[in-house]
């Protein structure tokens, strides 16, 4: 039903035209793509990413993450260049010499950027202002064998990479997928090292982990081989089954469908409950952080994804939640310190955030989308500045914040605080479950439909009897309250709150998470948070790739732009979003299946009668 399913591979393979002649290249396109890729290569090299990531091996002594980045680009370009647009009535050519030649050339041009860089690095020194214009970069790029070797080897690597990329198009789809999956899995398993190793050790299999991963990180040769082999076999034989299983579940109706869904939910819940028991505190800390962001993202998702209100100051509610919890539970709070138990404080958190949400929401909710964005951003900043100010420092401690906040006491059974990340994770998990339930139920209600209508056309929604101000305000407040939960847990987990934890940056990161995952899609938002926060890290929290910390915001920015250009509906989109963003494709899809009305004249009657 979605555009994804229309992509090649899913649709029945169309009849192929004979391959194009190798020399009939679209030279301008080739030069342009090659040049852009070359520019990207040079940029990546000068950003310092390769040097920094060279310390992180993917496969021991063979490949480091630094090279993965600059080495993957020729392959990607080599593959992209051979892409053909599929359109009704236009022939698709079989891949052949054209793709190989185009790939090789484009790859070579891409990597030639690095060759040029090597030459320049040898002859000029502009370390001021470009901080990464360094001998280390030269050594890395020339493999310590001198500039001439460096210039030539990159041309070679580029050509080979491009050849491989182009060559992938010649392979049957099944083999192509298998190869790509193998490569991707090896990199992924290597990136997930901390998690995997911790998990394996948790089930008392430390020797396996030692055998799998090298002492200073990275997969061992045997580890990489085994991973690749398993991935390959799974991809080669498994994909069809997976698809069939999914199709089967989707074809179920009524109680059977409900049963399948509940089973999936139970299974996921079981995994989420068991995994923290197996892994160590470092990984649990990571999981807890991811959980906090999932909670924030779910809250923002209601505001942005369901009601279509682009709130750039969402961090304000995170901050208000944190500070309210801190003031009410901490003995050290400057002005009032009732030292409520956390759960009692939570009631106040909900009330206070709800009121703040109303207070901020009321003036902004009638504004146009983009004004609203900027004004909410302003409010977010104002709230942080107020917490920071000397004026209110008597209440909130100014820049010193509030420290020594106790943990969350759970009905006298146990106390959850920062020293017990597993407990924090479970606590977050409970609140995430609440947030998911709330989003899921509300979306499928009268209110959810009203949000959808407001998102599509506010004027018409108003004319159809929807009090747009009220329903938008409600979305704003519900989102605010969910965000404040995250804040309240955050305060008692970290044990202290400072204004510097609530920069606008946090809002932006949550927004990226929501959009990357897929606006309006609960699963997407969770996946987005897990991937981005878990792997790259949050605004201040390290992820699995701690080496990335200085580049993560750069990557967030690039990902956001790329996502908007290539896949605006996000990683795991909601069906409706896809529709909104790909209306034409959707129409075409429906048309192919004969579901579109084509009544000009009396066609309509045929259209319906043919079906009913």
């Amino acid at each position, binding site marked *: 039903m979605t555009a994804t399913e229309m992509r090649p591979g899913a649709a029945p393979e169309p009849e192929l035209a004979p391959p194009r002649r190798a020399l009939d290249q679209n030279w301008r396109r080739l030069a342009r793509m090659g040049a852009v890729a070359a520019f990207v290569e040079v*940029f990546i090299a*000068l*950003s*310092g*990413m390769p040097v920094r990531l060279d310390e992180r091996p993917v496969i021991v002594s063979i490949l480091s993450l630094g090279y993965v980045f600059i080495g993957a680009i020729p392959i990607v370009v080599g593959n992209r260049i051979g892409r053909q647009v599929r359109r009704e009535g236009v022939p698709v050519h079989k891949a052949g010499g054209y793709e190989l030649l185009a790939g090789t050339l484009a790859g070579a041009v891409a990597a030639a950027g690095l060759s040029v860089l090597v030459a320049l690095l040898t002859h000029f020194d502009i370390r*001021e*202002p*470009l*901080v*990464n214009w360094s001998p280390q970069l030269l050594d890395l790029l020339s493999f310590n064998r001198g500039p001439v070797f460096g210039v030539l080897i990159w041309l070679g690597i580029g050509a080979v990479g491009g050849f491989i990329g182009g060559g992938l198009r010649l392979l049957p789809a099944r083999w192509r997928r298998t190869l790509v999956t193998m490569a991707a899995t090896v990199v992924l398993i290597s990136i997930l090292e901390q998690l995997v190793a911790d998990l394996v050790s948790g089930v008392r299999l430390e020797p396996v982990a030692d055998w799998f991963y090298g002492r200073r990180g990275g997969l061992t040769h045997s580890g990489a081989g085994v991973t690749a082999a398993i991935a390959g076999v799974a991809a080669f034989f498994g994909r069809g089954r997976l698809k069939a299983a999914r199709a089967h579940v989707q074809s179920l109706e009524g109680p059977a469908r409900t049963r399948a869904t509940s089973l999936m939910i139970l299974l996921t819940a079981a995994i989420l409950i068991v995994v923290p028991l197996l892994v160590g505190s470092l990984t649990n800390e990571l999981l807890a952080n991811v959980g906090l962001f999932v909670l924030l993202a779910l809250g923002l998702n209601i505001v942005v994804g369901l009601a*279509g209100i*682009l709130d*750039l100051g969402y961090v304000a509610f995170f901050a208000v939640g944190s500070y309210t919890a801190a003031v009410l539970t901490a003995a050290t709070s400057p002005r009032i310190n009732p030292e409520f138990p956390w759960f009692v404080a939570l009631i106040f958190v909900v009330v206070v955030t709800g009121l703040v949400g109303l207070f901020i929401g*009321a*003036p902004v*909710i*009638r*504004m146009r*989308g*983009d*004004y609203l*964005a*900027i*004004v909410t*951003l*302003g*409010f977010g*900043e*104002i709230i942080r*500045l*107020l917490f920071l*100010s*000397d*004026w209110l*420092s008597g209440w909130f401690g100014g820049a010193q914040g509030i420290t020594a906040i106790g943990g969350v006491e759970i009905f006298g059974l146990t106390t959850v605080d920062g020293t017990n990340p597993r407990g924090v994770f479970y606590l977050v998990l409970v609140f995430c479950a609440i947030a998911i339930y709330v989003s899921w139920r509300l979306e499928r209600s009268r209110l959810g439909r009203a949000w959808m209508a407001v998102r599509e056309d506010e*004027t018409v929604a108003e004319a159809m009897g929807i*009090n747009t*101000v009220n329903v938008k*305000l409600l979305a704003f407040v519900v989102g605010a309250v969910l965000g404040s939960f995250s804040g309240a847990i955050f305060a008692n987990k970290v044990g202290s709150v400072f204004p510097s934890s609530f920069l*606008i940056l946090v809002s*932006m990161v949550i*927004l*990226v998470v929501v*959009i990357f995952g897929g606006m309006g899609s609960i699963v997407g938002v969770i996946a987005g948070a897990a991937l981005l926060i878990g792997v790259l890290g949050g605004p201040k929290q390290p992820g699995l790739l701690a080496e990335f910390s*200085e*580049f993560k*915001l*750069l990557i*967030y*920015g*690039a*990902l*956001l*732009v790329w*996502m*908007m*250009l290539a896949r*605006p509906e996000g990683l795991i989109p909601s069906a409706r979003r896809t529709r*909104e*963003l790909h209306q034409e494709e959707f129409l075409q899809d429906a048309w192919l299946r004969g579901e579109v009305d084509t009544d000009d004249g009396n066609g309509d009657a045929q259209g319906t009668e043919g079906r009913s």
Partner: protein
Amino acid sequence: MIGKWAPRTGAPRTGVDKFLTLLRVLAVGLVLVGFAAFIAQEINTDNAFAQWANPDATGLSGAGFRGLVIAGISQGAMYGLIALGYSMVYGVLGFINFAHGEVFMMGAMTGWVTSTKLAEAGLWESNFIGSFVIVLFGSILVSTFLAVVMERVAYRPLRGAPRLIPLITSIGVSFFIQNMSIVLFGPATKSYPARPDWVKNKHTALQIEGDKIMVIAAAATSMILLWYLVERTKVGKAMRAVAEDAEIAALMGINVNRTIVTVFAVGGAFAGIAGIMWGIDFGSVIGHTGFLPGIKAFSSAVVGGIGHLGGAMVGGLFIGIAEAVGPLLILEPLGVSGVSQLRDAVAFAMLIGVLLLRPSGIFGERLRAEDRA
């Protein structure tokens, strides 16, 4: 849409409206009481009203006040220069180009590179005017180029996409450029070489610093050039036509893409000028420099009435003066301590206040046909 903004005749409104009316009254009241307290304290710090409002207030000397206003004007002129870019792009494409603040930052960054290089060569001290011209051109070049590339790579493919898509994209672009400058140039603060004395000294009867005079002069010149370009040239007519209806403009034989590129280029050039002014006035730049001024400049564009070029400049001056004077004029007399920390908060509060009282800005918006519908 009109019905959302303009009040209909007849009184009863919803709860939200009553609340908004209350907010409006409160906002105006706060400003008035603060102002009254300020005047009371100016007359005599011991009078009862001043004592009630803030016993600790010290009042403000005439010279101090003038200094603040002038600083505000020069700051506002920079906001105004940046705001022109926001306003022009909004007028033509209908979205906030969030990344415009970063174009400004890259202008300042380029200025740092060229000015330090010139200082190393000894030219900065010996021939400041000449060096300044070189630096200015360098920044204009880089900012213009960056703005044009941005349009080509990130925004052109999104023409006709739902409204929020290009806005979100521009947030991504902003993130990217900001951090790009950090990874390329390093995270440290970049200091401009020292300015010659006449730039630091005060001139004329009004006792204005040289750099402030430069900023104000640059802004005024830019405004005149821009007005001429938009109102008097063929390119300007093309811009106005594209702003109103791009499809029909194309039908007239106007090259829409080129016109839009021109809009970005002109906006970028102004941001570059603002960047240099910033660098010379404040003497340093870092990767985050662009963010807050960018947001405030956008606020200025909104306050002035988006799409209205004169409005952008007036809005910039308004925000600049408000954030310079507002804390001492209104907040301190009311008994708020540490007011200078709340500068940014005042700027944003002004934006919110103006939008509450006059949702289409001081001069009213000029939007594309489809936005007005």
